[in-house]
């Protein structure tokens, strides 16, 4: 068990190192001169040069990379060009809003997906099943920049129940969480259905039925706990999508989190801050996946008993 966790942690450190380097190199290698974009094409040569020196872009790329990696290790992400403040500070200010949004969205997703998935699995191949799966297909296909405005229209304008945007009121969270949560609910309910269907054919389910348990109890006590494993993995994997989705959702609802910060920084050409935001979201993503694998091993003894098991990332 210990060696499993250790291997898993070590491999995620390698991936994290790769992730931070990739963020750095992609931003530096792709076409386009950040200095030119920041100052405009008509800027004076001397101004461009000054900014280049200020940003450290005049140094050779490997020196810049070493400095950057060194900073990341010491949790020093540099200084924002726009705010003239330490990036770590800015991120710490913005983080709670995003965490709050993600947690509520996750809750929304679970509350929608479980009933929908269970209903579909129990009524397999009936109209209920098809209806539930079509709803879930709609959820996958309607992006959150369409869902968000639609929800605003319905529940903030036509029925003035919730605030249109911002984060001042207690109920401000409702519409962003719904927007972000429904997309995940769609994927999750399909997974719950598939994984329940696999379990429902097992012998112990037949035994439970034969004992005279009600269909409800059979599902709740015997089927769900066994169907939960793949669902947990998917939840872990989808957290990344949730964080990325939060970028657009936060924009729509002016929710003051990391997502909004990312887009604002892109629009302001504040590259150090963009770099830091992308890094933060990716690190969270890798961290959650590693954690999911380890939790998985605790829940399912088959995984921790087979040493050197290669955990497939999807």
């Amino acid at each position: 068990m210990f060696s499993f966790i250790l291997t898993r942690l070590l491999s995620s450190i390698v991936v994290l190192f790769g992730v931070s380097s990739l963020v750095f190199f992609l931003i530096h290698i792709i076409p386009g001169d950040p200095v030119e974009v920041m100052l405009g094409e008509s800027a004076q040569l001397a101004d461009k040069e000054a900014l280049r020196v200020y940003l450290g872009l005049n140094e050779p790329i490997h020196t810049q990379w070493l400095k950057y990696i060194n900073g990341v290790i010491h949790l020093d992400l540099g200084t924002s060009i726009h705010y003239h403040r330490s990036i770590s500070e800015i991120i710490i200010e913005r983080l709670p809003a995003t965490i709050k949004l993600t947690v509520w969205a996750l809750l929304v997703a679970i509350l929608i997906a479980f009933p929908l998935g269970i209903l579909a699995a129990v009524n397999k191949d009936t109209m209920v099943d098809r209806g539930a799966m079509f709803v879930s297909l709609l959820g996958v296909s309607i992006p959150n920049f369409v869902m968000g405005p639609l929800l605003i229209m319905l529940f903030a304008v036509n029925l003035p129940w919730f605030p249109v945007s911002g984060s001042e009121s207690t109920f401000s969270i409702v519409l962003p969480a719904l927007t972000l949560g429904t997309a995940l609910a769609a994927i999750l309910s399909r997974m719950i259905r598939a994984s329940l269907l696999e379990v429902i054919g097992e012998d112990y389910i037949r035994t439970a039925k034969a004992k005279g348990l009600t269909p409800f109890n059979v599902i709740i006590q015997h089927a769900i706990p066994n169907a939960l494993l793949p669902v947990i993995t998917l939840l872990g994997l989808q957290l990344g999508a949730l964080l990325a989705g939060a970028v657009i959702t936060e924009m729509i609802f002016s929710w003051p989190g990391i997502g909004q910060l990312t887009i604002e920084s892109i629009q302001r050409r504040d590259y150090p801050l963009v770099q830091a935001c992308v890094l933060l979201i990716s690190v969270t993503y890798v961290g959650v996946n590693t954690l999911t694998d380890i939790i998985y091993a605790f829940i399912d003894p088959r995984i921790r008993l087979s040493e050197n098991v290669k955990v497939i990332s999807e």
Partner: protein
Amino acid sequence: MSKIINFWIPLAILVIWLFMAIIGPILPLDPNKVRLQMILQTPSFEEIFGYDDLGRSLFDRIVVGSRTSLTVAFAVVCISVTMGSLIGSVSGFVGGKLDQIIVLIIDIFLAFPGILLAISLAGIMGPGIDNVIIALSIVGWVGFARLARVQVLSLKQREHVQAALALGTSYVRIFTRHLLPLISAPLIIEASFGIASVIIAEAGLSFLGLGVQPPAASWGSIIRDGAHYLLVAPHMVIVPGLSLACVVVAVNLLGDHLRDRLDVKN
């Protein structure tokens, strides 16, 4: 009945989309013509989709926008499939150190939420349709590479490949004649779902202002403009939003259909 819903209707939607995108430029459309007296007019019999905030015909803009989404979806999926399956197959076939390095690169790319990486790349490269295509392709190849690698890994042990190797057949020929036909089915299916996600991603980038630049139209940029007029002209969001959702649902349903037909496990 279910075949009508799952196959014929989606096919019809897809054909309309393709038709709009391909025939669009030769139709007498005027997507950028400003009609000041028509600003924010809601849909009517004369103009089925209504007008936008500058009095431009929303119908014309939707038709022109379909070309944007088709171009991007087609380009990104083609580049991603070619790059991905090539890198993945070589990695799986050659094995050893090269394979380890490529797997590590794939793992690192998978550690990013794809759309986020695309947003930042497009943001840094600056707005424009070609940059959107580059950004989405940089993100898109990974899934295909992983799929192709896994397929080739199991295929290279097969007798017919071993026999070809023993006969001294060139690698290029082994790839094109003995591997590609067998790995193409799952790749085609992955590609069909890829089209759906690229359509959404392109609209998302345009929604954020990173895609096509005004006055050019994309469904995402129309939604972006419309979001400002949600209270007075909701049709500016509903029409492009529904168009987008219809095409994506249709592509997904056809993808499911294709998967069942080609009999590939999910």
